[in-house]
């Protein structure tokens, strides 16, 4: 409990620091949302100034930061000028979409990485191991962008899968089970793309963790006792190797979120990725701050979960 409390406190402090620095950075940015309006000869400078005053943009930095924190407490995170609504309600559905996508891709890639990694470690040097290592080293050097573009090309050319978006045009008219099917079809391509780009690193780590454990004396002893091989692998070796893998889980969230940003833009998935790019292009800086904050919340929460899992699974950490 004390451990958890300390970790939570630490995460909170980091989030606070991030919010402060993000605010400082983006408030010192040249130009604002009204730049386009200033260029318009039919809008007077006075009108722009009034608008700025209306949104509290002429206050000092600290006042605005305090305002923003107040609005954060209400779940608003300031006002998006491009959409004319509070940022919070704008973010939630998109954050949900991003989370659903990265979550399912995460499950998919771990479900592939663990069995493949365990098998290739068990049959070290065998044909499966060699295929896996060839596969991982090839995939590692292919840019994510190219993987996503080729998947999109495949979808466009074959028509097997929808080539973007999250739902079909007639989504509202479908029955419940048809809606689920439609969603699943749209999920397939981006989730597959994310799983493909995150798999090689996971696979490599699962394999090396397992190889190390399989070399250890207690496994040899278990083998000497005549315990079946599959039981040794899954019941004895995998839990012993899980320690670095749990830390890797926390780290893999960061890469997954970054890759998700690209895949969302390419496959027009209505998540945080397209939102932040639109916001950057229109200088809607409150939205940028909101998305950045949210992404770091995801990452920190993921690392927190990994820490707790590690605490539960490894007695050595508990003693410390």
């Amino acid at each position: 409990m004390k451990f958890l409390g300390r970790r939570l406190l630490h995460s909170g402090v980091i989030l606070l620091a991030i919010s402060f620095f993000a605010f400082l950075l983006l408030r010192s940015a040249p130009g604002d949302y009204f730049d386009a309006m200033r260029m318009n000869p039919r809008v007077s400078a006075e009108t722009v100034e009034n608008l700025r005053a209306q949104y509290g943009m002429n206050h000092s930095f600290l006042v605005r930061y305090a305002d923003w924190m107040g609005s954060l407490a209400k779940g608003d995170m300031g006002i998006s000028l491009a959409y004319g609504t509070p940022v919070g309600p704008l973010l939630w559905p998109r954050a949900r979409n991003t989370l659903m996508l990265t979550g399912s891709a995460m499950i998919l890639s771990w479900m592939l990485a663990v069995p493949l990694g365990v098998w290739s470690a068990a049959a070290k040097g065998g044909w499966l191991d060699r295929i896996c290592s060839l596969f991982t080293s090839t995939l590692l050097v292919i840019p994510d962008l190219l993987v996503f573009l080729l998947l999109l090309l495949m979808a466009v050319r074959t028509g097997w899968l929808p080539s973007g978006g999250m739902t079909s045009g007639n989504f509202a008219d479908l029955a419940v089970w048809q809606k689920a099917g439609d969603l699943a079809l749209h999920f397939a391509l981006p989730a597959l793309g994310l799983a493909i780009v995150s798999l090689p690193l996971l696979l490599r780590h699962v394999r090396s963790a397992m190889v190390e454990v399989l070399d250890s004396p207690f496994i040899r002893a278990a083998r000497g006792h005549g315990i079946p091989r599959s039981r040794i692998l899954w019941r004895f070796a995998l839990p012993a190797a899980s320690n670095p893998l749990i830390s890797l889980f926390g780290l893999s969230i960061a890469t997954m979120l970054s890759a998700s940003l690209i895949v969302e833009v390419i496959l027009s998935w209505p998540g945080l990725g397209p939102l932040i790019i639109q916001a950057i292009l229109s200088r809607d800086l409150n939205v940028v701050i909101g998305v950045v904050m949210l992404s770091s919340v995801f990452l920190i929460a993921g690392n927190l979960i990994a820490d707790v899992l590690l605490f539960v699974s490894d007695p050595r950490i508990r003693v410390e």
Partner: protein
Amino acid sequence: MNRRYTFWGVVILLAAFHLVILSAGFFSPYSYSEQHRDLPYAPPSRIHFIDSQGHFHVRPFVYGWKYDAHSPGSYVADLATPYPVHVFAFGSAYKIAGLIPSRIHLFGVDPPGSIFLMGTDGYGRDQFTRFLYGGQISLAAGLIAAALSLALGLVVGSIAGFYGGWLDNALMRGGDVFMALPWLYLLFAVRAALPLHVPQGQIFLLIVAVIGLIGWARPARLIRGVVLSAKERNFVLAARGFGASDFHLLRRHILPRTYNIVLTQMTLLIPQYILAEVTLSFLGLGIGQPLPSWGSLLSALQEYYVLASYWWMYLPAILLVPVFLAYSQIANALQELFSPVAL
């Protein structure tokens, strides 16, 4: 022994590739902004040795493209006039290494013929030329940004490790904040703080600075670890006992022990940062028209019809694979080489 030859082979190949990119003006037949308005999205030219009458030519030649009367929007080879490929042909002016003006290109064909090794884009610009010139920007962005990150990491890491105490704490907590953000989101946040429309000359520096500045935390942490263990070594303590200054200790005894890590990190960071530039430019937040970069070459693929119909537009992305492969081979070899050394 064998692996050593492979390693040096990869290094030499990679160096040669960088040299070709550096002298893009010589190796490319056109200038990067030269438009062939009558040939948008022309497929790559095929190099022939045997003409339509079945005669063999020692000098290779290409055919021009003409519109296909049967399927609109596509091209067929115009077999009427072959255009021989000249070596050391005269063409548009460029500067060797940015200094010496020259008009000699490695190869080219006489107008009105044209040679497009990687096809053309929507303005009829030669993709091969743009790939080479784009490489200048993308590779330089990767190299300079990686050097910037490592320089920062080296300074911060060695100060944190050497002086310790509250300074160490403050610097490493600062690094924690940088690492608590998904990397691409961090990149975007910093990009958002900078002006969108920047003069061409500055945008490159801006992108390099953004990419380089946000990546310092991880190398700094690694270097701090090495410095931390090195400063307790007996020879360092001895030098300190003889009255060596902090600066001398760092420069002569401690920093040389971090070079392994710096070198390995460099080979890991360069491809990552090249990719960062490619991603930014692909999404329209980096290098824009008419300057080519590998990312802005790929951004044409955001149009569905380009993505689905013109396969040669993928070539810049596919050519990235061997470059990254070479970098990762070198990184692996270096890691293997340095890992048995007790630090």
